[in-house]
């Protein structure tokens, strides 16, 4: 069999934790091979070993049938292995060409030869259908385009094996489709791809084979076409999972949140949300569907108090809070799971305990007369850690930066739900998480609803919106183009609305 990469019996231990126990992954030439596993199952470590960032304690790595030692990323690059990291490594003030040639510059004597490089990038871009302008600056291009620049970077270095680490986490639905096409183009040219993802749908759509790992061990490699999504999910988490969320019919109560003709400007000082109205009642989940960048962020920020609206009002339980401080809003019962967990959710260099009391440190028992009570804070944090299964090295004292993305997210969700808010705003609550965690978080959100709380859910995942919401509002270019009962709609109708086709009639909110 013609394998591009074989990783056999890989074991890697970090102090106190076995990240990879016994993992075997064989990548055939010309295939898209998915690597599926929960957060912390050992995917990143395994790929780190292949890319030369870590050394395996045991096991063999073969490239093109020959055993190799990959001591650092430069060796990996020479062997034709390239990696697109989840967080792009691009210099935003540089042009596309400058970013791509950085580190292996074309030169004429001592001088950079940008022209020749740009021409080659243009060629590569056309050949693989990437459609990238080599002279554009990174800060001016979309996230999807930036990802393609990362792919070009590898192609420019003649990579034969491409590792894509959670490539769709940052993309819009359209960009995800485009990426699928790009992957097919790459395969046709004889490249091989390792696709790291939690999203079973994408594995189904793009991958040929899939290796599932759990707790550092290979569970098996399956043929994607012959395996159902459910079967793969079960291999991954090691128990039965359901995609459909069990929930009773909603029993909506009094209006908790009332947004009335709200208009909000974005950072570029353009109106991102115009004349938007919405009501969320106690005991219901209202989902907001829309393509990324259609005013969702601005709406959330206006409700949470992070952005000043131009006009319109926000009321919470009848009280106007349009101009209230963030702390005032928290005290009156708003919980907010922010979109960007690293920017607005957590102080990355604080411990879990400190992060858990960010909103309540000033209340008893966390502090008394201006002095923090470390013990009470620790106990509070440990309660959240236990009930939300936040996994970390040193419990409440762990620095949040060292946690995996999924565990960071669980910590934030735990913190907000612990506040027991009357209104919980959840923005992309399951972004970048694995099936097991998603299932768990969905349950907790529904639990909030069943307790008679209002939940406002903003997500780019249409499935999530359809599964969880009782009512769905659709935004397009900052306007509410429709509001529908979740039980009476389907993906098609929402998709049409998201694309800007207005609904007939629709229920007034």
């Amino acid at each position, binding site marked *: 069999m013609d394998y591009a990469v074989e990783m056999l019996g890989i074991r890697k231990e970090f102090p106190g934790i076995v990240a990879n126990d016994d993992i075997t992954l064989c990548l055939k030439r010309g295939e898209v091979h998915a690597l599926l596993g929960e957060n912390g199952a050992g995917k990143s470590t395994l790929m780190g070993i292949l890319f030369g960032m870590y050394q395996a304690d045991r096991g063999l790595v073969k490239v093109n049938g020959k055993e190799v030692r990959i001591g650092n990323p430069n060796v990996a690059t020479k062997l034709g292995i390239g990696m697109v990291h989840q967080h792009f490594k691009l210099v*935003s003030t540089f042009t596309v060409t400058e970013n791509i040639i950085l*580190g292996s*510059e074309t030169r004429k004597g001592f*001088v950079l030869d940008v022209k020749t490089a740009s021409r080659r990038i243009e060629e590569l871009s056309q050949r693989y259908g990437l459609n990238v302008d080599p002279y554009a600056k990174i800060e001016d291009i979309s996230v999807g385009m930036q990802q393609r620049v990362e792919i070009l970077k590898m192609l420019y270095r003649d990579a034969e094996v491409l590792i894509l680490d959670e490539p769709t986490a940052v993309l819009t639905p359209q960009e995800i489709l485009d990426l699928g096409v790009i992957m097919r183009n790459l395969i046709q040219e004889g490249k091989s791809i390792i696709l790291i993802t939690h999203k079973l749908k994408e594995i189904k759509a793009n991958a040929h084979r899939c290796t599932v790992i759990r707790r550092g061990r290979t569970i098996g490699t399956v043929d994607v076409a012959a395996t159902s999504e459910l079967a793969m999910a079960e291999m991954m988490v090691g128990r039965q999972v359901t995609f459909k969320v069990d929930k009773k019919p909603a029993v909506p109560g009094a209006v908790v949140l009332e947004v009335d003709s709200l208009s909000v400007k974005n950072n570029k000082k353009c109106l991102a949300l115009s004349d938007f109205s919405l009501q969320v009642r106690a005991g219901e989940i209202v989902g907001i569907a829309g393509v990324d960048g259609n005013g969702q962020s601005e709406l959330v920020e206006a409700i949470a108090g992070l952005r000043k609206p131009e006009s319109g009002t926000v009321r919470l339980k009848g009280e106007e809070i349009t101009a209230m401080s963030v702390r005032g809003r928290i005290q009156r019962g708003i919980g907010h799971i922010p979109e960007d967990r690293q920017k607005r959710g957590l102080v990355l260099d604080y411990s879990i305990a400190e992060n858990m009391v960010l909103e309540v440190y000033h209340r008893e028992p966390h502090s008394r007369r201006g002095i923090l009570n470390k013990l009470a804070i620790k106990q509070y944090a440990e309660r959240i850690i236990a009930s939300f299964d936040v996994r970390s090295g040193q419990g409440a004292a762990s620095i949040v930066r060292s946690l995996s993305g999924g565990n960071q997210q669980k910590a934030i969700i735990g913190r907000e739900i612990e506040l027991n808010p009357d209104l919980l705003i959840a923005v992309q609550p399951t972004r970048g998480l694995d099936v097991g965690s998603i299932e768990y978080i969905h349950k907790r959100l529904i639990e909030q609803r069943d307790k008679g709380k209002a939940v406002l859910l903003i997500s780019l995942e249409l499935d999530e919106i359809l599964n969880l919401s009782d009512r769905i509002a659709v935004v397009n270019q900052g306007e509410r183009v429709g509001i529908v009962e979740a039980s009476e709609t389907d993906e098609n109708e929402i998709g049409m609305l998201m694309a800007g086709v207005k609904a007939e009639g629709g229920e007034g909110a």
Partner: protein
Amino acid sequence: MWTTLVQIMPYAIVFTIPLLITALGALFSERSGIVNIGLEGLMVVGAFAGAFVIFKFQALWPNNAAALWMGLLVAMIAGILFSLLHAFASINLSANQIISGTAINMIAGAITVFLARNMTGSGNIRITSGFSRYDVPLLSDIPVIGKLLFTNTYDTTWLILLIVAASTFVLYKTPFGLRLRACGEHPHAAEAAGINVRKMRYMGVMISGAFSGLGGAIIIVTFAGEFTGSVSGLGFLALASLIFGQWKPMGILAATLFFGFASTVANVSQVIPSLAVIPPVILKVFPYVVTLLALIVFSKSSRAPQAAGEPFDSGKR
């Protein structure tokens, strides 16, 4: 007015040059990601080393310009060596770069005066003669600009302008420049591209040390003629020029020229009748007030290298 300008301009240029070269060095350092507020101290070290070497060599070979060039060279080496302290603290030890730079400033002022006192008895080192001024042949006869730019010039002025041109080229047209800038903007991207970030940052700081040392020595061989244990805030002014000039070589050239001109106006105002009517305090304060205003105006659009001042930790997510 015109005659005043013609009188002032050569002095303004002379005063600008040490600022310019020091700010340019800081540009390399900050573009590599290391904030260097130790410029003042590095200039003092350069001024001391330069003055001392020139003092000794002029005793051996009187009236030989080689002594001056020797002094400049040693000043650069001294600047490099001293800047290694800052580099080691901020790159290897991930120390706070502001504190490390402040330490450089404090050590430099003290150690040089201490050494000077031990060697010469007084804290001052006076050199017999500096570079001499000359009018550039032909160019100084060009109407208008000839009088402004090419009269009463020093060799060092042309050397520094050459270095500025070369530096601009290196920063924007060579692989070294591209890598250096990448380290200051996004060191993780640079690392992923196989670049040794620490090495590049060492280079940046060392270039800064060399240029600051040169700047300090140029003060001695042009307008000062004597080492007195300080460069009277020129290092900080160079830092302000770097920000004012928005971390770009041509911006720095303009900013230092502005400071050079404004300071010269303040210094000579008493002897020039048309300026003597303005209270000297106002003229003295003028460049600093403008700096503050400029920083306020530019702070919104300021394009400092994004990773400047941040220790590089390759494991950080």
